[in-house]
């Protein structure tokens, strides 16, 4: 069986601010279910996506408590997709731009997230079959 491809994505948006986030994670989900090797270079605001201290809340407008609301936390998406990729013989390697992490104070990331430098995007992309940049606006 041919090796599964390695795809690299660069993403920039912080959580909860744009429709790009859900689309990006949908792409990661498709890739993870296929057992592809996924590399994510999280740049600028996107380094907050796997921030381990995200906390769910209730929704009083809809009368739902925290459990009922089940508010999405992107850190859980990242963890779930890491597991999904591995389950299917692939991998999700999430690299946070370290300087971006420092200036935002989001150093506490979930397990499996690594800290890198801006040059890592080039290295990851160069070692992949293809890459996609999803910029912020």
């Amino acid at each position, binding site marked *: 069986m041919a090796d599964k*491809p390695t*795809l690299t994505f660069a993403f920039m948006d912080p959580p909860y601010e744009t*429709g*790009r986030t859900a*689309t990006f994670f*949908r*792409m990661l989900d*498709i*890739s993870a279910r*296929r057992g*592809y090797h996924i590399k994510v270079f999280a740049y600028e605001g996107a380094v907050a996506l796997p921030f381990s201290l995200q906390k769910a809340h209730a929704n009083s407008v809809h009368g739902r408590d925290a459990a009922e609301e089940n508010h999405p936390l992107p850190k859980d998406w990242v963890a779930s997709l890491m597991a999904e990729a591995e389950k299917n013989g692939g991998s999700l390697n999430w690299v946070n731009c370290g300087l971006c992490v420092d200036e935002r104070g989001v150093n506490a990331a979930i397990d499996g997230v690594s800290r890198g430098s801006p040059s890592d995007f080039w290295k990851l992309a160069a070692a992949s*079959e*293809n*890459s*996609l*940049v*999803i*910029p912020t606006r």
Partner: protein
Amino acid sequence: MSKYLLIESRDPYESGDGDFIPSLAAQLTAKGKEVTILLVQNGVLPARTNAERGKLSQALEAGVTVLADSFSLRERGIGDSDIAPTIRPVQLDVVIDAMADGIKTIWH
């Protein structure tokens, strides 16, 4: 032959850069490249039959394939009967298919 997948996430109503992707697609097609535009997020808003599509119409006339993300369409209440016949709803898998096939993929 070079192939391209141009992902258009912006709509022509709010964005001042709505001509870029259709123009790029038309130009690449004129140079003999195989080009597909995938509309996602608010980029699907021009997919309605009676929508003003600006340069997207010209790209269609130039032979560019235009697809629209099914989830984005459903999210905006654009049903199958509302979509222009020249625009085809698809699953987002087309992006991963393209990337895995080495097709040059650009997000706008």
